[in-house]
């Protein structure tokens, strides 16, 4: 009886030590789930989800505080991917957070810009260049289309212009066989 108890205690101690060592040796830095969610999010940093950036929304999602249908730039495809990853039910984009729009970039009307730097401070990805009382301009390849610069502009000189398809970004369409009426 005593031997059995001792053996069991011994095994428990050894396994406990192994597990304890493993938890220190193989400790995972950060939350891997947050990273996975963050990889799905479009990184627009627009804040339409109600969180100050994509990472905070990812953190809220991983804690179960936020719903998966709060990201308009990610669109339906993004919601589907989040639903797959988090094992939740797909639901359409929530109305209060906005609508899915084609990708657009901010364009500053340089004739109207007064150089107030408010848009520069609002841009989450530092995609606007300019200085006080100097003309500002948007660096198009860096703009994520978050629209955060539109509201602060005191002279309403920022417009969101949809990105046009170019030869480089054009995509082959999904093949469809056209039905023709037989004569």
């Amino acid at each position, binding site marked *: 009886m005593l031997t059995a108890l001792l053996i069991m205690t011994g095994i428990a101690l050894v396994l406990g030590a192994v597990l304890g060592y493993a938890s220190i040796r193989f400790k995972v830095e950060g939350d891997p789930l947050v990273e996975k969610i*963050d990889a799905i*999010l*479009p*990184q*627009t*940093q627009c804040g339409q989800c109600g969180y100050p*950036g*994509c*990472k905070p929304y990812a953190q809220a999602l991983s804690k179960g505080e936020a719903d998966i249908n709060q990201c308009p730039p990610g669109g339906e495809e993004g919601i589907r991917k989040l639903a797959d990853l988090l094992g939740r039910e797909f639901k359409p984009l929530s109305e209060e957070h906005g609508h899915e729009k084609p990708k657009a970039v901010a364009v500053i009307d340089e004739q109207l810009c007064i150089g107030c730097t408010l848009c520069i401070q609002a841009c*989450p*990805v*530092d*995609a606007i260049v300019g200085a006080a009382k100097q003309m500002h301009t948007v660096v198009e390849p*860096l703009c*994520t289309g978050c629209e955060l610069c539109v509201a602060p502009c005191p002279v309403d000189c920022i417009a969101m212009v949809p990105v046009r*398809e*170019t*030869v*480089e*970004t*054009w*995509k*082959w*369409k*999904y*093949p469809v*066989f056209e039905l023709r009426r037989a004569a």
Partner: protein
Amino acid sequence: MTARLFSFRGGIKTDSHKTESSTTPIAPAPLPQRLVIPLRQSARAGARCLVEPGQHVLKGEQIGVPEGNLGTAVHAPTSGTVVDIAPYPMAHASGLVTPCVVIEPDGEERWIEHAPFDYRAAARPAVLAYLRDRGIVGMGGASFPSHIKLGPGSGFDTLVINGAECEPWITCDDCLMRERAAAILSGATLLRELLGATRTLVGIEDNKPEAIAAMRAAAAALTEPLEIVAVPTLYPAGGEKQLIRVLTGIEIPHGKLGAEFGVQCFNVGTAHAVHRAIHHGEPLISRVVTLTGNVAHPGNYEAPIGTPIEALVALAGPQPGTDRYILGGPMMGISLPDLSIPLVKGSNCVIAASPALFPPPPPELACIRCGACARACPADLQPFELYWFARAKNFGKAQEYNLFDCIECGCCAFVCPSHIPLVDYFRFAKSEIWARERESAAATQARDRFEFRNYRQEREKEEKAAKLAAKAAETRAKLAEGGAAAPAAAPDDSKQALIAAALARAKHQQATAHPRNTEALSPETQAEIAEIEARRRKAFPPQTDTTASSVPQTEHQSAGEDSK
């Protein structure tokens, strides 16, 4: 000497339809009314415009400087006036517009000064830069810049010149080899020297006996380590990897290039263009293009780059019944959305397609898993698997099955008994994957920039706080040194310290300041002042430690008391 030939797996035998256009010699195409020269000659890279509307340009004058690593220069194909710089549709499956320079020829064909390039005296990078500035690109269809393919100039042993021209209907390389064999071989010699290769193999399909004979005759006059090899006619023997396999036996594995195995491949048209550029100083401003199909006079024409396709078609005499025009061959070419599209450096053929010549495909049926496509695939892929994944938009899986090794030759779709447009599915899947890669690269960039911005804002806040603390500490140190009344406030409270310092400063100022008009006064004024002082003292009895700042306070207090 006959080298042993190898073979590649798959491939198809098609009706070659070469004789329609190869019997007549290459004819110069007349200058059209307007030349539309796209600054972007391929989807890969563009050029920056050098001219402006109204400017007169000479034949061969550079109108676009290369942009980016893969850019090549663009030149005026004739002398004339630039009338417009605007977006026009481009020779691309999308039919999207691209910036073009429109030149109205003056008909004089006046050349810009040009001279042969002494490539032996120049350093290798200078020769490559010269080729780039002459706008030399691959003329087999892909328009890849030749100076990049010439690479570092070492590690090559074999140069392959591609004269296979395996696609049906196209005969421009065939005619070029028949008529300008010496120039092609001179270009091949230049390319071989630039590559540092030890031998040249020219592969020509054996359905072009005249071209083989002409090339052999030209080669006999040279002392080059050069061999003209007739390869069996089997589509796509002219594919780069396939031709290298047939000629050298080297099978280039997935994800690698011929360059890694000491082999580089150039088209005969490119060799000809390199010869013209180096030995004559001429940029690439024209090319031989096959006009064939449902036309009265099929043949090959040497046309300036920028000639609208409709002008070319008019030369060949279009016939009724044509329902679409194909740019390139029937296997890999694209249907032209618009006939105003100009000829570019990579356009080798225009086919007028009629339902009689190219019957519309029968309806697409379900895949019956027969495996015919896999047997025909020259890239050793399993097109049926790729088809299922592409159709289901399961792109990750399609990539696992090496979708990007597909050369889009069309063999699988050609043999498919269910008439499935397999290549369309593969092109769709490829462009979707590229789009996703672009999006994810943009997202990564945005994330990095956002995180850096947050870090920067934090850093700025800290820097500001540190600056304030340093200033406060400095003031405190000064106070301690000066021996002035030390503030009673806690020394680590920077705000308190600052207030105390300000008070001390004010006190010091008051102590040192003298009323300027109190010296050398008359006795009457002196008496008047004394009287006022006495009155004031009577009204406000002096307190023990009145400071400058507490004076107004006292006044207020007393005023309040008065009102009570």
